[in-house]
């Protein structure tokens, strides 16, 4: 059976230490969205981050919500779904140093190497969204849109949305403080049955250049 746990978006080291791979988590507190746009602006262009991190929030969501900024400046927020996190590996180390994030939330987790190199030294864990498309459930967990930063500079999809969460979830613990990786564990378990399904199939007659790193390979 799965275990369900409520967690603050500014979690204590003790609370994080108790989390196990596969635990189901619901979040309370402020979280912010940051993906390639925010990383490039904050890290490469060295723009000042417009909120106090990590005291206001230690939860970085790889997301852009389906939302509208109304003419009066208020927000209408619909569904909320994460985007695939592995693409952001090149920025995550520097982002930890700058933001003090303890929770990285997104789609599909990151590599075991990224966990060992960047998450473990920073005492951070990864939470994956479920499905991936529990957008309506997660949208319901957002009590309020507190602010949208850099909307003019980055556009709505890449802007830094600050969301107030109330039992927002579900999320699944995909890495722990020791750097163990849920997806790596599951992939190892599925490998034997996957191998069995390949029995009797044949590799394509024409190979693709680039499937090997050997540039002298006679690819045909």
């Amino acid at each position, binding site marked *: 059976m799965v275990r369900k746990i409520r967690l603050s978006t500014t979690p204590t080291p003790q609370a994080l230490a108790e989390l196990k791979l596969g635990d189901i988590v619901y979040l309370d507190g402020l979280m912010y969205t940051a993906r390639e746009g925010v990383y490039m602006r904050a890290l490469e262009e060295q723009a000042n981050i417009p909120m106090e991190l990590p005291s206001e929030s230690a939860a970085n969501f790889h997301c852009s919500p*389906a939302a509208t900024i109304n003419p009066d400046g208020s927000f*209408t927020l*619909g569904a909320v779904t994460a985007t695939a996190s592995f693409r952001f590996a090149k920025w995550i180390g520097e982002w930890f140093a700058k933001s003090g994030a303890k929770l990285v939330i997104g789609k599909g987790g990151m590599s075991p190497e990224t966990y060992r190199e960047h998450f473990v030294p920073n005492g951070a864990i990864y939470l994956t969204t479920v499905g991936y498309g529990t957008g309506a459930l997660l949208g319901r967990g957002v009590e309020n849109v507190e602010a949208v930063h850099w909307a003019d500079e980055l556009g709505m*999809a890449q802007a830094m949305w600050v969301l107030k969460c109330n039992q927002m979830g579900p999320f*699944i613990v995909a890495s722990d403080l020791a750097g163990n990786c849920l997806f790596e564990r599951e*992939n190892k378990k*599925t490998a034997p*049955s996957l191998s069995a399904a390949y029995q009797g199939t044949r590799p394509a007659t024409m190979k693709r250049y680039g499937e090997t790193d050997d540039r002298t390979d006679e690819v045909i």
Partner: protein
Amino acid sequence: MIAIDLIRSTAETLMDKAAIEIPDDYLDGLKATAAEEDGDLSSFVLQAMLENYEVAKEDRRAMCGDTGCPRWFVKMGNEARVEGGPIALEEALRRATAEATNGVPLRPNRVHPLWRTDHNNNVGIGAPEIEYGFEPGGDWIDLITVHKGGLFGTDYRMLFPSDGIEGIKRFYLDSLAAFGKRGLACQPAIIGIGLGGSKDTCMVLGKRAACLRTVGDRNPDPKIAELELEFTEIGNSIGMGPMGFVGKSMVIDCHIEVGYCHTGGMQMSVHAFCLSSRRACARVWGDGRVEYRTDPDWFTPYQRRETVDWPETAVAAE
């Protein structure tokens, strides 16, 4: 004459329905799959998805925050005339896409590939895609919108007759595993396979097989129908479920479409529609009637015809 205002308002309603309401055929298929699933985490994910569909309808909130790439398939009966012609029709569909982006709301996903310009309305160069088909008879136009994810779950490979069914199976498994790991394909999904055509039409066939056929529908060629069932079963036997967790819910259904190809080749494409399977359709008639449905009914005998002419039309015209 089909009124242009009716086309636009119907298109806006369709954008809303596609984003919010899970089609019944997919929902029934997923429920049947969920009943069989025994992996702990996989079962949890499927239950969360089922709950998500309910919440979406209750709140009139999109099922998924990632709108994908909204697109249109338009099919016209041979007798249909649209007020203002095809230019007005395209403007109506582009406007409906923009309006719904702010209205539902949907995520403004579409940006320029290089300059990342975002008009915040899912409209831009070539966006939304609008594709056309025609059907004998009928003073009606079918509007079909599909909001398919845009990044993962799709691949193409040039195979040859010598690769055979074993080669097709191999590439199918490669694609399922590549995008199924960590759940990037947002499975369990309807898988569409395109065989033949040329590179571009092979991709089109596979995409349409995934997005424009309903769960349980079978190809009229009995041998292809058999392959569809076999591939569904194979997909569910690789030990992988939703999010790549241990499980057996990978493929809700598999649809295969074929097109005549170069005598030396056997092009193949694989497409995974996602957990939200966002599609909605309506038929708008010249007399002002509008009928909503979830089955695009795209692949009619006429669309799959092999002959030069279409004898049924000749008979009807007499």
